C-alpha cells in the first residue's frame, strides 16, 4: 500500500483546479478587493488621463508628463493593495474559521489552498496591470512600453516580493482585524515611497535613496525604466528578488496553519 502511495501525488491534481475555482468565485462574490484595488486604480488612471495639463511633459519629472509618471505608480498600487490586503485577509480568516485545520486532515494539504489564493490574486494582478496599460495606451496616448519583456519581468518579481510581505502579514496576524491593521501600517509608507502622494522625482534625494530600496519604490523604478527607456537596471530587480526571498522564507518559517 505504501510504495504505491508514494508514487502517486497525495491528492488528485483536479483538486487544485477546484480550489482555484472556488477561490475565484469568492473573490468575485466579495468584490471589495476588486473595487479597492482594480476600481480605484482604473478611476485614478482615467482622472489623470482626462486632465489636459497632466499630459504635458515636465522638466521637473525628467521630461515625462505627470500622467506618464503615474502609470507605473498605479501599477505598483494595484500589486500593493491586492498583495497586502486581499491575500492575507482570506488566509487569516480561513485560519480563524478552522478551514485550514479542516483541510489538514484531508488528502489535500492546506498549502494547496494558499497556492490557489496566490494563483487567483496573481491572475487578478496581471489582468489589472494589462488593463491599465491597454487603457492608457489606447485611450490616453501613452506610447507602447519600450521593453515589454523587462516590464513583464519587473511586474512578476514585484508580485513575488509583495506576496512575500503579504504572507508575512498573514503569518504575524492572529485575527482578521490584526491583518487589516498590519496591512495599513505597511501599505501607506510603501505607497509613499512608490510616489503615490508625491512622485519620487520631486522628493529630496535622501528619501529618493530610501525609495529605491523599498519594494514598491523599486517596482515603480523598474517599470518606469522598461516603459520609457529599455530593459530595467539590475538594482531594482535584485531589490525585489531579495524581498521575495527574504519575506518568503520568513513567511515559511512563521506561517501557522492553525
Amino acid at each position, binding site marked *: 500500500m505504501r510504495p504505491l*502511495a508514494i508514487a502517486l501525488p*497525495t*491528492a488528485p491534481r483536479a483538486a487544485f483546479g*477546484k*480550489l482555484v475555482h472556488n477561490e475565484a468565485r*469568492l473573490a468575485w462574490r466579495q468584490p471589495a478587493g476588486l473595487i479597492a484595488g482594480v476600481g480605484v486604480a482604473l478611476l485614478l488612471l482615467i482622472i489623470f488621463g482626462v486632465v489636459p495639463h497632466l499630459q504635458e511633459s515636465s522638466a521637473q519629472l525628467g521630461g515625462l508628463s505627470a500622467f506618464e509618471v503615474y502609470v507605473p505608480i498605479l501599477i505598483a498600487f494595484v500589486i500593493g493593495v491586492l498583495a497586502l490586503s486581499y491575500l492575507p485577509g482570506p488566509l487569516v480568516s480561513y485560519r480563524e474559521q478552522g478551514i485550514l485545520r479542516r483541510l489538514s*486532515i484531508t*488528502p489535500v494539504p492546506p498549502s494547496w489552498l494558499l497556492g490557489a489564493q496566490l494563483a487567483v490574486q496573481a491572475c487578478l494582478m496581471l489582468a489589472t496591470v494589462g488593463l491599465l496599460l491597454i487603457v492608457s495606451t489606447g485611450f490616453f496616448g501613452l506610447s507602447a512600453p519600450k521593453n515589454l519583456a523587462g516590464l513583464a519581468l519587473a511586474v512578476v518579481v514585484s508580485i513575488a516580493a509583495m506576496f512575500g510581505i503579504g504572507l508575512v502579514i498573514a503569518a504575524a496576524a492572529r485575527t482578521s482585524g490584526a491583518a487589516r491593521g498590519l496591512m495599513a501600517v505597511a501599505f501607506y509608507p510603501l505607497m509613499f515611497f512608490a510616489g503615490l502622494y508625491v512622485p519620487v522625482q520631486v522628493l529630496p534625494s535622501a528619501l529618493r535613496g530610501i525609495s529605491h530600496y523599498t519594494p514598491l519604490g523599486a517596482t515603480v523604478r523598474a517599470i518606469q525604466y522598461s516603459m520609457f527607456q529599455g530593459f530595467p537596471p539590475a538594482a531594482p530587480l535584485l531589490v525585489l528578488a531579495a524581498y521575495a526571498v527574504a519575506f518568503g522564507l520568513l513567511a515559511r518559517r512563521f506561517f501557522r496553519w492553525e
Partner: protein
Amino acid sequence: MDLQTCAADGRLDVKARQLPLRGTPAAAPLNKPATPVSASRPTQACSRPAVEISHLRKTYRGLIAVDGVSFAVAEGEIFGILGPNGAGKTTTVECTVGLRAPDTGTIRLLGLDPQADKDEIHKIVGVQLQESSFPAKLRVAEIIEEFRSFYRQPADVTELVEALGLAGKRKDYYRSLSGGQRQRLSVVLALIGAPKIAVLDEMTTGLDPQARRDTWQLIEKLRDRGVTIMLVTHFMEEAERLCDRVALIDAGRLVALDTPAGLTARARGGKRVRFLPSAPFDDRLLAGLPEVTEIERDGRHVVVTGTGELVNAVLFALAASGVTAHGVQLDSSTLEDAFVRLTGKHLTEKGERS
C-alpha cells in the same frame, strides 16, 4: 431516568439488555436488523483493530487533558466515547486523527501512525470536527464538489446529501445555512471520501430529533458496509441506539469500557419503586425491611429505594398491613445512570436531552 410503567416491563427490559447481541441497545431491539449485520461483522478477536490507542497522554501547558487512555476499536464497530465537557474526548479524537501529537502513548489506525503516515491516514479516515466552518459565500454544492475532488474514490454524493437532508440546499450559500444544516454538511464532508474509518465529534449536536434519527440511520447503513465509526457524543439515546461499545471518559481517564447494556447493568446496583398507597401507613413499616435503604414522600406518592427483591418485599409488607400499592413504577437504569454512578457527574444538562 426512564420510569417503566410496570415491574413486568422492567424485567423484560433487563432481559433484552442482557442479550448477547454485541451491545445492541435494548431501547430499539425490534427496529434494528441485528442478525445479518452482526454475522457479517468481524469480531475483535479475529481481525486487527481499526483503531488502537494505548496509554495516550496529552497535556496542555501542564494541564492534563488525556491521562493514559487505552482502547481498541474493531473493524466495522461503532465505538462511542462519552464523557462530560472537558473530559478529554475531543483531545482523544484530535490525537487519533493526527491533528495533535500525543505526549506519550501510541495510536494506530489500521496499523498506521497518524503522525508518521499522514498521507495514508488522510485517505482512509473521514473526520467531522466540532468546530469547523466554511467560506460564507460558497454554495453547499461548491463546497461538496471541492471536497469530493480531494479523494480518488469518493462516496456517492447524491446518496449522502439526501440521507442528510441537504438535497434542497445545494444552491444555498454556506452563510444562509442554519446551525443544524451546517452540522449535517460537515458530516457529509467527513464521509465524502468513502472512509474506512469515520471519526465524528458530536455529529448530532444541534440537530432536531428527526434529523438526528436520519443521521443515525445513515451511520447504521455505513456500519453495515463495514465502515468503522468512532463517535463522540453526549446523547445517551445516541450511544444506546448506535454504539456496539462505549468508553466513558472522565477527567482524562477511561472510567469504563463496555457495551451500553453492560454499562447499564453495572449501574443497576440500586433500585427504586414508586407507588400510590391506598391508605396512609407508617414509614417504619418499610424502613425495617432489609431490602429498603430509603423512603421518600413525593406528595401522595411514596418512593422507596433499596436492593435485592425490593418490589416483592415492599408489596408484601404493605399487603400484610392491608395497604394496596397503586400505579407501581420501577425505575430502570439507563446509560445516564451508569454514567452518574461511575463518574459522579451528569453528562448533560437535563434540558439538552432529546
